């Protein structure tokens, strides 16, 4: 018993850390209708500012805590509401998820640009000294109660009670819950719904700030990854509460923390259980919740009684170019492509040839996002994982069986497609947010339980590609150009494949499903089968892209394919245009070019790439076709009017203007 307590009690602070996040996520969802993916980043920003105020500005702990929690926390929440989430219609789940992920990717990057990227260590505690042992539980020597334990338990219980009183016992709480169901209906009752929702965001921001500052001293170094991992673990608990009940979320969170720490104590170190299963416990719990909890299947169903009067959602691709201009643009594209190929094969410096090769490989991975999100209408947060499955399969087959890496890449694509199909089949009953969370759980499972295994990845150093894996052609010699020819050849084949699918019956079925699932099923389209098909295609393309990326980087390691990259990939492609193959290629090339250009700037500006793309993705709600695509259309519209090719405003819905749109939108 003493041994059990000795193992279990240290799990309680972990569980409480999950619980604080889980309760915050449920609160935000209950009070604003937004599942706030940015919650971990919000907490991190407060923690970072808190540490900065103390360590750099010399403020006393209480003043820094007050500023970080009471001023910055709610301030960020209010900013999110005012600038972003208020403008997103409640039924647009994809836009809400994309906005949250953009903030999650962009905010920490912005911090490092503004404050520099020096490491932050040993953040002081706001209450209770973390290392001091205050007493022993039941007087047992094995169960010391230190400051971390005390602050975790005291604050978790305090926060939970305060929020329950707010949501269940006050009229403000009632108004918040009503505003989530229908902001318009609440307004008809004379309530200022905007103010109610803004208050909810402020309270949720306060919670995030408090969580950030409380958890900062727990780890030796302040790192955003810890906050995001913590948040994802908390999502598991929130999911078991169907994003509804704060006490259930808190209880599950504590249970997850206690079970994982306790079982670690009993299991032998170095076993698979110890190294793979226990660390991925929160993600297994999340996947299980998504499979079992019925409330998570209807998250995206609108509850607004006034929604019946809403017009159908506007299409994302009904604006096009006139046939004349379309021809011009097409010729220009071919010219640019030809110039690019010639340049790469003749005068391009080695460094830049490498950059563009990486861009081509990334573009191939991004095409998988065009397939799954642009055509399938589903948000997947596991595309880097699928790319990793392809790359590691090719690497393992080459190193163990001596299979040529290029052939292995094709096998890897098949395996990645198979993984995607399993994911699709498991999540057939989920849509929107639920599906996004399922893919995120899968990505984290692969990160912690598969890619991290040294049998698969040879540890953090990764698999180093061997020349002997590649047969006669030397893909490592940049001046020999075979890698470039391979990369552009693969990209062209994949692009043509995606275009053919899109113009074919499958593409039309998918367009129908994006428009109306009910209508599509009602004419005989098998929605489940179409989803499996698009996942399989997307997985295969991602797998091929992953192998190509590994080839370009001459190594395969877990950090090339982790979940954070999956999130970043979505943000990039959403910015450049998720609905077109051009968008994927612009995303791939644009990302590597911006990153390469920033190597000429001071070190702290490295994160600017993510800030830029995240800022672009924040416009998703207004421009679902992608801000780059939107600008392109605006400018081609202007050029058309200057040239007199098309009268009137761009995007006018006249039949003459609209007719070539579908043909023209590639």
């Amino acid at each position, binding site marked *: 018993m003493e041994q059990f307590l000795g193992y279990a009690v240290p799990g309680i602070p972990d569980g409480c850390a999950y619980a604080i996040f889980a309760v915050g996520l449920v609160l935000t969802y209950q009070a604003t209708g937004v599942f706030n993916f940015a919650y971990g980043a919000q907490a991190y920003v407060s923690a970072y500012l808190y540490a900065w105020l103390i360590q750099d500005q010399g403020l006393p702990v209480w003043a820094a805590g007050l500023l970080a929690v009471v001023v910055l926390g709610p301030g960020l929440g209010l900013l999110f509401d005012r600038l972003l989430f208020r403008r997103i219609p409640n039924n647009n789940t994809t836009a809400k998820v994309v906005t949250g992920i953009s903030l999650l990717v962009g905010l920490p990057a912005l911090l490092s640009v503004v404050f520099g990227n020096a490491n932050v260590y040993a953040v002081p505690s706001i209450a209770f000294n973390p290392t001091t042992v205050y007493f022993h539980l039941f007087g047992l020597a094995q169960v010391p109660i230190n400051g971390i334990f005390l602050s975790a338990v005291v604050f978790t219980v305090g926060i939970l009670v305060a929020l329950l009183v707010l949501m269940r016992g006050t009229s403000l709480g009632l108004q918040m819950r009503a505003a989530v169901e229908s902001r318009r209906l609440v307004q008809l009752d004379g309530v200022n719904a905007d103010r109610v929702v803004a208050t909810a965001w402020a309270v949720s921001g306060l919670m995030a700030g408090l969580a950030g500052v409380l958890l900062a001293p727990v780890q030796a170094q302040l790192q955003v990854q810890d906050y995001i991992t913590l948040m994802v673990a908390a999502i598991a608990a929130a999911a078991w509460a169907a994003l509804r009940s704060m006490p259930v979320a808190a209880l599950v969170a504590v249970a997850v923390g206690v079970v994982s720490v306790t079982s670690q104590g009993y299991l032998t170190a170095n076993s698979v259980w110890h190294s793979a299963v226990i660390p991925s416990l929160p993600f297994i719990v999340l996947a299980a919740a998504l499979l079992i909890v019925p409330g998570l299947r209807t998250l995206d169903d609108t509850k607004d009684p006034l929604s019946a009067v809403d017009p159908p959602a506007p299409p994302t691709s009904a604006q096009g170019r006139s046939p004349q201009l379309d021809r011009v643009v097409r010729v220009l594209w071919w010219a640019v492509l030809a110039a690019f190929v010639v340049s790469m094969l003749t005068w391009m410096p080695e460094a830049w040839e490498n950059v563009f090769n990486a861009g081509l490989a990334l573009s191939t991975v991004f095409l998988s996002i065009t397939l799954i999100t642009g055509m399938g209408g589903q948000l997947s947060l596991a595309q880097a994982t699928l790319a990793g499955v392809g790359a590691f399969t090719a690497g393992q087959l080459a190193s163990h069986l001596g299979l040529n890496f290029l052939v292995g890449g094709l096998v890897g694509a098949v395996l990645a497609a198979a993984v995607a199909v399993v994911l699709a089949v498991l999540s057939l009953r989920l849509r929107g947010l639920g599906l996004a969370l399922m893919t995120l759980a899968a990505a984290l499972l692969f990160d912690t339980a598969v890619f991290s295994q040294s049998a698969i990845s040879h540890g953090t150093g990764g698999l180093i590609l061997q020349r002997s894996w590649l047969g006669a052609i030397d893909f490592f010699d940049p001046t020999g150009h075979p890698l470039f020819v391979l990369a552009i050849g693969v990209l062209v084949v994949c692009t043509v494949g995606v275009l053919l699918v899109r113009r074919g019956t499958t593409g039309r079925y998918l367009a129908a499903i994006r428009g109306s699932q009910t209508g599509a099923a*009602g004419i005989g389209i098998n929605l489940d089968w179409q989803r499996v098909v698009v996942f399989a295609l997307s997985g295969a393309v991602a797998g091929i892209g992953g192998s190509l990326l590994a080839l370009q980087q001459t190594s395969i390691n877990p950090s090339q394919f982790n979940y954070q990259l999956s999130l970043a990939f979505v943000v990039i492609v959403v910015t450049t245009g998720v609905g077109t193959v051009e968008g994927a290629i612009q995303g791939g090339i644009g990302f590597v070019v911006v990153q390469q250009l920033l190597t000429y700037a001071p070190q702290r500006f490295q994160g600017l790439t993510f800030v830029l793309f995240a800022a672009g993705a924040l416009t998703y709600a207004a421009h679902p076709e992608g801000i780059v695509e939107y600008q392109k259309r605006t400018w081609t519209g202007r050029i058309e009017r200057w040239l007199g090719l098309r009268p009137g405003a761009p995007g006018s819905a006249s039949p003459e203007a609209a007719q070539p749109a579908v043909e023209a939108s590639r």
Partner: protein
Amino acid sequence: MNPLLDVRGVTKRFDGITAVQDVTFQVAPGESVGLIGPNGAGKTTLFNCIGGQLRPDDGVVVLDGRDLDHLPPYRRARLGLGRTYQRVEVFPELTVRDHLVVAERARRGDGRLWKDLLGRAAPRPDELAHVDQVVDLVGLGDVAGTPVAALGLGLCRLVELARALVGEPRLLMADEPSSGLDVHETHELAAVLRTLQTERHMAVLLVEHDLRMVGEVVDKAIVMDLGRVIAEGPFDRVMAEGAVRRAYLGQSA
């Protein structure tokens, strides 16, 4: 003659509210039946139970001798059940013609991926001929190449109707097809439905509030109130019944 559609004892409850209670009726092949009743009578819920969008808690739905229980909506559509919706369910990005091509192929279960990848998925001449025939029948010829997002509500309803018709269903279920149409358009729609019934021997199950249109189209009317069938028979006779006038028109008999 065996009925085409046989609905027996269908009941659907939502959290204690019984939306449809023990409803039984039949539709013969080529017969036109109007399903009428005040708002909240359970007409659309019943439609969804027949179409497979909802699963009834009790009772069976049989189409041409085949029990539809456990069949998802797309399988029912392929068996010859076409429908339109109270709230339009169109595909904004597709043109009117593409709507019909998609519906035509979906009903046949056509759409092999390899055909797409070999570039052999363009609409065939015979498909286009059939599609254009339906487009002309419904009167959408002028906008056949227009994305549906650019069309008004009335035209969207016609697109839904055309999309259902292109699959040549044996039973067409139309849910308030005339809402959003003006008097003239409604009259034309009624004429189209009559033509389908007489020339193509298509059975029609119609939910409609425009009683004049119902009178023009249907052979038989079924009146529902609070989830139950309260009257059934020829339209004129049913509308004269006291219970119907009380429930539906709010008049004292």
